[in-house]
């Protein structure tokens, strides 16, 4: 495998350097060219038909031109169909694309039919997704660019076809596919870069409408699973990232030193009644930590990690009332709590609190009510707030009233440091959730229960796992469950079972759902891997 990988990389290297050559190579290739023409043909037809339908007051000359195009493309089309009808030519096309391995005829013909299908499909896609505007642009664009554009769509269809191959043919073809794929990627990614450069300024707005004009989007169908990249969990991710060489250390250090020179100014301004908000690319956590350790050691301060997924304003208020004000007692609402805090801070002017909030714009804190409460806290003269924001739309959280309560001073602190802590909680697409959190909570809760209750849960978990491959599994119906529990001598009445279930539900261990027939179904909202782990552990304990 490693040998293969090496080879692939080598191939990638060679072709990547000769980018233009690759382009030329593709465009020289008859098969691709035909495809390209056909693609254009489709577009032209569409445009033509559209024109006819509209019967608008378009230029006649334009129309004639269009017609000419149409005829020309029709010719190409005929040629293409001719090409398509002779399998021999197709074979040569295949071999020219994969010069390393001469493919055997039966296989390739099979593949050919597959590719034909894929081609049709891709064209259909294109037909739907292109807008007249885009089309015109493409037609009038210089030839090189239009080449590359159609190349892109060609490469797309190619990939689709290869994906089909993957299913149909043996591993040999899979190996074949890799060079073409890697070659396609740089070709498709590099050329739009040039295009972007040219049109960067002209169509910022159009870009938006273009992307949203059709409901369908043209992207390739490749998935991570096929790439045979296993999902990394948080731990391995960290380990791997630590291996990556750090870049620009000197420059980053200089940036940080610039920011650190502002610390005393921040302190001054905090004391003069301003709040400070830090923005800019890069994690500002370390910077704030440094600020805290260097200047706030001897004063009362509260650090709020806003990026933590279960933080609430309530918990912030609680820590202020309990830890700072030593007030033991409950409040009916956060507003009452806020009232008390404000009263206490107004009465006692010697009381001072520094509030450091990492990521004030996190999902949990960005709500209007949370921001209102935090703003009112910040408006107190003896609470000094210093916070960081990262989201591009973060300033939209605040209306005029809130802004004046916060009394912000903005400081740009671009650090370029990675958002390690901040993203570690994010349920990232590519990171596999370890489930360790859920597992520990499961064991914790279950340990505090009676053996019978544990048995009830195990019963449900087993049933759940037995049905894990059934996609239409609705859950275990309550009556069914009751019956099973009775048989296992776990409960003696429906009432006791219900009492147990309430307990589970309170700890979010189970979820109930009413089916279409009105029957209550029980589900465990934990992923199967965790559940299996849990059962194994339980079995060990017993």
């Amino acid at each position: 495998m490693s040998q293969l990988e090496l080879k692939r990389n080598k191939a990638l290297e060679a072709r990547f350097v000769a980018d233009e050559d690759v382009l030329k190579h593709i465009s020289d290739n008859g098969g691709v060219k035909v495809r390209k023409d056909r693609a254009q043909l489709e577009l032209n037809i569409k445009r033509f038909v559209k024109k006819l339908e509209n019967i608008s007051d378009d230029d006649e000359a334009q129309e004639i031109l269009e017609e000419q195009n149409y005829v020309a493309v029709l010719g190409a089309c005929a040629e293409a169909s001719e090409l398509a009808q002779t399998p021999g030519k197709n074979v040569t096309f295949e071999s020219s694309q994969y010069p390393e391995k001469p493919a055997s005829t039966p296989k390739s013909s099979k593949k050919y039919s597959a590719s034909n299908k894929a081609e049709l499909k891709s064209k259909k896609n294109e037909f739907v997704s292109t807008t007249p505007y885009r089309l015109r642009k493409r037609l009038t664009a210089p030839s090189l660019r239009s080449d590359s554009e159609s190349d892109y769509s060609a490469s797309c269809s190619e990939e689709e076809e290869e994906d089909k191959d993957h299913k149909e043919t043996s591993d040999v073809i899979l190996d074949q596919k890799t060079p073409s794929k890697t070659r396609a990627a740089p070709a498709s990614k590099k050329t739009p870069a040039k295009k972007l450069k040219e049109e960067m300024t002209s169509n910022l707005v159009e870009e938006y409408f273009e992307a949203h004009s059709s409901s369908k989007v043209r992207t390739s169908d490749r998935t991570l699973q096929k790439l045979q990249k296993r999902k990394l969990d948080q731990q391995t991710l960290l380990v791997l990232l630590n291996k990556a060489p750090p870049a620009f250390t000197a420059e980053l250090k200089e940036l940080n030193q610039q920011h650190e020179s502002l610390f005393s100014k921040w302190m001054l301004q905090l004391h003069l009644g301003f709040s400070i908000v830090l923005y800019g690319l890069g994690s500002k956590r370390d910077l704030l930590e440094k600020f805290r350790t260097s200047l706030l050691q001897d004063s009362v301060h509260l650090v709020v990690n806003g990026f933590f997924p279960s933080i609430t304003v309530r918990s912030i208020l609680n820590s202020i009332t309990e830890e700072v004000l030593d007030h033991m007692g409950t409040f009916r609402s956060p507003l009452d709590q806020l009232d008390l805090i404000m009263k206490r801070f107004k009465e006692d002017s010697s009381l001072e609190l520094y509030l450091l909030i990492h990521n004030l714009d996190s999902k949990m804190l960005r709500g209007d009510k949370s921001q209102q409460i935090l703003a009112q806290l910040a408006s107190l003269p003896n609470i000094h707030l210093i916070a960081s924001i990262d989201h591009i739309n973060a300033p939209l959280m605040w209306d005029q009233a809130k802004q004046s309560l916060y009394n912000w001073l903005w400081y740009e602190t671009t650090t370029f440091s990675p958002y390690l802590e901040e993203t570690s909680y994010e349920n990232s697409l590519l990171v596999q959730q370890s489930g360790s959190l859920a597992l520990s909570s499961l064991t914790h809760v279950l340990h505090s229960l009676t053996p019978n209750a544990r048995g009830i849960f195990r019963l449900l978990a087993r049933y759940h796992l037995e049905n894990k491959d059934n996609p239409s599994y609705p859950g275990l119906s309550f009556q069914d469950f009751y019956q099973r529990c009775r048989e296992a001598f776990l409960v003696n009445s429906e009432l006791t079972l219900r009492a147990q279930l309430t307990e589970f539900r309170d700890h979010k261990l189970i979820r109930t759902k009413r089916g279409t027939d009105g029957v209550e179904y029980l589900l465990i909202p934990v992923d199967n891997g965790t559940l299996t782990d849990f059962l194994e552990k339980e079995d060990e304990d017993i």
Partner: protein
Amino acid sequence: TAVRFVNKKCYIRARFVYIYLSFCLTDYFSQGKNDSEDSGLRFATCQLLWKQINSETEKIQEELNKQLFDNLIHFLRQSHSELQTKKTEWMCRMKSSEIPTAALVLGVNVTDHDMTFKSLSEVLQDNVTPYVVSLQAKECPGIKHLLQKLMGQLMDCNVDVDSSEEEECVNISQKKIRCSMASLSKWYESVTKKTDSETPSKKRTSSSRHWQSPPIVVIFKDMESFTTKVLQDFIVISSQHIREFPLVLIFGIATSPMIIHRLLPHSVSSLLCIELFQSLSCKEHLATVIDKLLLTTQFPFKLSEKVLQVLINIFLYHDFSVQNFIKGFQLSIVEHFYSQPLSVLCCQLLEAKKRVNSLSHNQCENIRSLPSFRRYVESQVSEKQIALLTEDSFLKEVTQTLLEDLHIYHENYFTVLRCLHVFTTSLPKYPLGKQIRELHCACLGKSVWETEEYESAIQLLRMLAKDELVAILQKCAEIFISSSGKQFSNTVEKLEEFLARFQNLEAETSEVQDVSVSSQKELQKTTDLYHLQKTLLALKESKRSKKLTKFEMLRFEVVDFIDSLVRSYLAPAEMQTLNEVVYFNTANTLREHLNAAPRIALHTALNNPYCYLKNQTLKSDVGCISNTAPDICIVYKLHLECGRLINLVDWLEAFSTVVTAVEGTDPDAVATDQVDEIIHARFIRAVSELELLGFIKPSKQKTDHVARLTWGGC
């Protein structure tokens, strides 16, 4: 598990170690700057100045609101007196259960409202009634909360009346009675009875300012934000009880009075007897603030043209908030004193002269390095130049006179500026701006007489009518007389002479009038169109060729005089020696801190990391992807090339292609698999960072796809 994370989430250091540090802010003040010259003194001056300015702004606000509050009190008194005197009328009014309501239109500058309401409730509590309740929409999501707030504030606010009553109040609040209108009216009855029966004499003496049976005033601070239902319910319920206690409502309105009818259906609004009050517009407020804070020699601190422009722009284009303007002013004071070591001299003239004497050598060097001072030195003779650059004592002497010059410059400047403003406001189309602040900006920045606008203004001045000109001259004379400067006595004399000459013109002009009258008569005679045209042309010719009248001569003279005043006194501040001491001119910092553009900063950092990381390898053309750029920049740029959905696999591949183009220089590396893993990890990190920043979000439309969220440049 939740507990475990609460600890992690919020932790507090030094819980009870309230070390009341002997730290003073001065430490922070001095730490920042390396040359911490006179930082203590500087900070004290800064604080003192800000305190003065703050109290001045409060005074301005008070004065501006006085008229409004007087009207409101009058309204309250009226609605109250009807209860007292015209019992019958009040009765019939009660029958229809109308609640007297003041609709207070305050304008869109929501941030300033708080101040207004604060002073309003203070004024009302002092003069009308102790029972003033302010409610905010965010405190009252339901009618229950509203009543709770209302009761709570009422119970608190009569504390000052009687001590025995206070106890009762505590009792009531302790019981947490059901907050209903019935209990409210009971409470009101008990309160008024007590004060009436028990201590009628005492009341008259102690709180004679309050009327008997004072009304309960309920202020809805932000009427628009209240939910309709809460408002409606409250009004309907309280209209049922209006005969038990006199209730007056005040609505704070930011938009237009129409909102009342939009929020309340007719059946509810008919229960109100609404009177409209208009507060002063925020623009006038700002004009007064600028007039009192900036266009005066009272405060030594000055804003340069650019800084003032930034503040005014924030006001005009962002919030209309005078409060924020003052905040910006405060920030500029702090910044000035923080960053300019010589700002220690930015105080009253006498004090400044004293401070000059005790300047250290370093500070003297600071003075010598000021660009304006260098200009001054270069204009001196060589011996004096040497003395200035070498002898500290001589330098101090000169500095004192220069500071005095600067002070005199300001005195003259503001007087002449006001005078010029009187002239320019009378012109059509206002070539130099309608507001004095615009004129001020124009004069501060550059020599105003070199600008085109000034040219056209002077042109227009030469066409002013006589009575206009006389009125303006009179106003100018008043301005010069009221100004303290002695040097304007000549100017006043001159102006008065002009006025006298205009008076003398009266007689002479009558002759001229005769001529015109005769020609007019001629005009009337000719009825033929051809002749009419001819005579008109002839008239025109005669006018053109005619020599200037005496009035016109005099007018030219006046305009020339004004022009000379402008040229001699309205020189731009930057030309003045030592202007750096009192002028704050780093407009950039101000804009950065007050009106930041976080999105643009992010965009620049992602697109062009070279702006921040000064590494030569990062220097690249726009639109190209530098291979060495930080991962997130590469991933960001690749994502810009995609459509609405992005395939993660393609993205990853493109990323690894770009990255390996640099690192892959040694393709024979054995640990290829390892490298791939690392790249994968780096990609994951960069993508999740982009997600955190809000550029992409996971999409369920297709497997392994993310949706792009931003379009266009940033």
